[in-house]
């Protein structure tokens, strides 16, 4: 499976707008998601939960770059718009884009994405939540239960919810402001891997309870 990153001379503001016409010029790729497996979760409580998570079954992914920044456009159907938490339930909806960090690059092509990396396979994720505002969190991980949110990674995110559908755009400089231990650089032209995750807050999805694209997807960046 492949997601192509087209080169389009779009302004950052334009690309970051989920409803912008620029996204109409980019073909979408349907990515099937699966409930994350619970057997490797670090918490015995979570491992023992009856599996009711992974409510979002597919997303539509688009990607472009403008020579400076890389943008992902994720869209999916979710009948419940869960934004800022005001009570124990529901949780906010969330979405993430994950790429391997340079140290891992050669080791992950055969592996699957579901574990969020491993000891020797560090990964970088961009995490959007409606309550985070217009900044996504920069996450690093080396396997189940190791995810860390690091300092501002210069990742913008804008979202729109309309007619029962979320559309979220992530944007970050191809050459990130954080070092290669924390933030995955992307070169154009070039190739790397990508994976996606979505959380349905109304279904109490958070942390390891999510829907994921289980295998790494090739990200082909046009020149």
């Amino acid at each position: 499976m492949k997601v192509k990153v087209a080169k389009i001379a779009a302004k950052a503001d334009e690309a970051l707008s989920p409803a912008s016409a620029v996204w109409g010029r980019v073909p979408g790729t349907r990515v099937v998601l699966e409930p994350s497996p619970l057997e490797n979760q670090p918490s015995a409580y979570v491992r023992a939960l009856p599996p009711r998570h992974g409510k979002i079954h597919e997303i539509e992914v688009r990607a472009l770059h403008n020579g400076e920044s890389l943008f992902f456009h994720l869209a999916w159907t979710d009948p419940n718009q869960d934004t800022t938490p005001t009570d124990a339930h529901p949780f906010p909806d969330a979405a993430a884009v994950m790429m391997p960090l340079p140290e891992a690059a050669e080791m992950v092509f055969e592996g699957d994405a579901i574990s969020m990396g491993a000891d020797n396979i560090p990964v970088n994720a961009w995490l959007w939540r409606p309550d985070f505002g217009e900044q996504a969190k920069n996450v690093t991980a080396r396997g189940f239960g190791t995810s860390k949110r690091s300092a501002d990674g210069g990742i913008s995110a804008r979202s729109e919810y309309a007619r029962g559908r979320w559309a979220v755009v992530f944007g970050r400089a191809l050459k990130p402001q954080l070092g290669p231990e924390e933030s995955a650089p992307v070169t154009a032209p070039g190739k790397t891997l990508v994976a996606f995750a979505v959380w349905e807050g109304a279904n109490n999805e958070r942390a390891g309870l999510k829907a994921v694209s289980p295998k790494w997807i090739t990200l082909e960046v046009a020149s």
Partner: protein
Amino acid sequence: MKEDWKPLRQLAMVIDLNKCIGCQTCTVACKTLWTDEEGMEHMYWNSVNTQPGRGTPRDWEGMGGGFENDVPRAGRLPSISEFGDVPRYDYERVFSEGHGEKEFLRPKKRPDWMFNWDEDQGAGVFPNSYFFYLPRLCNHCTYPACAEACPIKAISKRKEDGIVLIDQDKCKGYRFCMEACPYKKIYYNYVTRTSQKCIFCFPRVDKGVAQACARQCPGRVRFVGYLDDERGPIHRLVNQWKVALPLHPEYGTEANIYYVPPIGPLRNTEDGNFDPSQPRIPTEYLVSLFGANVKPAIETLQTEMDKRRRGEKSELLEILIGWRWPDDFFSHLTKDPVEAGGGLS
């Protein structure tokens, strides 16, 4: 593994339900000290409810969590409305805008459930209706289901005294702890977006001061100390006399708040005489709360009370009465909070 949680020593509390008058001074002492900020309005780290009753949060005993044969049992998240609505009042309109003559202060929205909503309702039929008060706080369990459940290890149990704490810098608000706590004593703070709970007043404990709920209690119903301190009231009541029992031992977490079960007043007959043939508070009800060990505990209490009625000495009743405050109550935690330094009261 469960055993990994075991501390070197465990600080514990005994609450004598025969002495509790349900005045909520403990609740207020805790509330004003720890949970008076925005996002914490619905939190009562210490709560007192009438039993039998639906408790706080409402019907918490049916919400799951804890362990079943050492396997974590799924639980559900209590909502703010189940803990109890927090009414807002239109102070401005009544006090400042000149409507005070015509309108009185009342909640903007009529609440349909609040903390302590079913106070003093209890159960039973006249002339043998009954109730008692049950103060509850985090049980600082020997096997904390909350800490086991946290996927990012934001909850720790102090090795030196077994106090269970949620690290507010690590917590990401995933709330698995809230689900896993069988006592439903963890709250979600929607401002900090973290889970919060009773900290057993550790800043006071660290300076030799007893917990606010214990020290402020006008009825002196609470004892504090190490479970293994053979000279202290906790060890003597829990291990030696076996009259103090954990709530719902079947939850499998080994709770460290222990209760001296309530004896209740004598039953009355229709014509107003005493009927000592059976207890006013049904024993089965107490068993449902404290397990089968409540039966010998009540027998011991009654035997010792009978001794005193005959004018004999009872070591157990001497402990439960506690003649010297604070020494007979708080073991090594007898310091006055003001003497121990600021910010503790």
